């Protein structure tokens, strides 16, 4: 078992697994964004495919449901000419009692090169990366309430394309921070890339304890928190992860923390609105804002393919034992 601290990097300090934003420096995050920029143009070409990963096998291991993430990983792999197999583990072997490691080792025995893992438990991707063969890479596609690093990087890519740089940027992340792996990855990425200020806006019940230690300013009030921000990131209310009554009601939540056109006016006039999806219209965001001119929600989805192509090709080329 290798050391956890250096697990993401190979002997040359290059990205071998992509498990969390935490532990990666500004240069590496910037390299991911630059590489994604090259891949973004492939989507605009007549032939949306390059032979970079021909002959490589990637397995999507989804222990938890997903639409966007899974589809964009599949498209990213396909556009790189890799072969990809998507397994919905929730309905397969584990339900027959097979352990996680047995599942992994069995699929590994099919000579695969990479696992893309989504799991409801925090740390699942780390755990798998510790146990796979040295030439196999692992990408975290969301683990419990821990991290969702490719989502954060596609958000950073989207922000950089519109705002050009992170210096001087004020970003507000609004909503269910407590259950959000996306927020945790975004906060890490924004701070590493040098954003001026990262704010979180949420009711106390939806904030983790000691949230300030992540390097954010905390607001309980939308009006104060949105003032002068350049980017507003709305989060989905994760009702499936809520075990107790953290909220009065959805309509009450929208009144206090939902993003309406009026509230958006409090932000900078050039502010952009983002949401990792799926959106709950009328719960955390109004349709007028979600479909409005300031919304980047659909660009985020398109950019997700380019960013995932970058991460797949970078980790594939940096696998240990590669010549």
């Amino acid at each position, binding site marked *: 078992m290798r050391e956890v601290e250096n697990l993401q990097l190979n002997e040359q300090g290059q990205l071998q697994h992509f498990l969390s934003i935490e532990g990666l420096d500004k240069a590496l995050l910037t390299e991911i964004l630059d590489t994604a920029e090259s891949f973004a143009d492939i989507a605009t070409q*007549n032939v949306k495919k390059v032979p970079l990963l021909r002959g490589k096998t990637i397995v999507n291991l989804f222990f938890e449901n997903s639409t966007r993430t899974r589809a964009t990983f599949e498209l990213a792999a396909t556009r790189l000419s890799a072969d990809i197999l998507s397994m919905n583990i929730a309905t397969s072997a584990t339900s027959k009692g097979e352990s996680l490691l047995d599942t992994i080792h069995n699929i590994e025995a099919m000579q695969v090169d990479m696992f893309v893992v989504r799991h409801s438990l925090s740390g699942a991707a780390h755990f798998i990366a510790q146990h796979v063969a040295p030439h196999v890479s692992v990408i975290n596609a969301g683990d419990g309430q821990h991290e969702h690093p490719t989502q954060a990087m596609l958000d950073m890519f989207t922000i950089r394309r519109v705002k050009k740089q992170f210096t001087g940027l004020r970003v507000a992340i609004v909503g269910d921070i407590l259950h959000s792996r996306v927020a945790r990855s975004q906060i890490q990425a924004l701070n590493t890339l040098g954003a001026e200020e990262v704010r979180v806006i949420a009711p106390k019940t939806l904030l983790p304890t000691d949230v300030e230690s992540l390097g954010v300013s905390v607001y309980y009030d939308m009006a104060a928190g949105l003032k002068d921000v350049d980017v507003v990131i709305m989060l989905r209310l994760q009702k499936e992860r809520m075990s107790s009554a953290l909220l009065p009601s959805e309509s009450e939540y929208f009144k206090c923390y939902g993003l309406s056109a009026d509230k958006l006016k409090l932000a900078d006039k050039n502010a952009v609105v983002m949401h990792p999806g799926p959106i709950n219209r009328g719960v955390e965001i109004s349709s007028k804002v979600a479909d409005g001119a300031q919304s980047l929600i659909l660009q985020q989805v398109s950019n997700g393919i380019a960013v995932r192509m970058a991460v797949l090709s970078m980790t594939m080329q940096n696998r240990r034992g*590669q010549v």
Partner: protein
Amino acid sequence: MTMETIEIANLLDTLELSLCAAIEKRTLKNPIMVGIHTGGAWIAEEMHRRLAIKEPLALLDISFYRDDFSRVGVNPKVKPSRLPLSLEGRDIILVDDVFYTGRTIRAALNEIFDYGRPEQVLLAVLIERDGRQVPIRPDCVGSEMTLEAGYRVKLTGPEPLVCVMQNVGEPVNA
């Protein structure tokens, strides 16, 4: 590192004449000129102007098609290829600055064929040096040269276009 400048005005003239002859001999019809990023694009721009080719100049970045990806990795600054929607049935003049191992041309041909089946492809290069590693050769050349081990030819540009021969001390792969 020693450096020697190669005069390219004559080379461009020779390449132009050679291209004119080849276009006539192979009866190219309304050809599309494709320059390989970056040096080949500069030469292609010059030839495109001199030969008054009607179709807009196309550009090719072959980084994603290279066969040494697992050794050198992704270059994070890949320029998008600008090719017409279809190359099906078209006559193509592929242009590069220096022909060395032939691997760049192999990659370029692969990318071109992803856009359709061209009628014919003609390869024009400013300089053909020794060191071929695959069975591919240019049809039109500005100059042929044999270099001593450890030397390489490099084009810088676009304004001015300068070609230098450098001793880099160790064998290099183009």
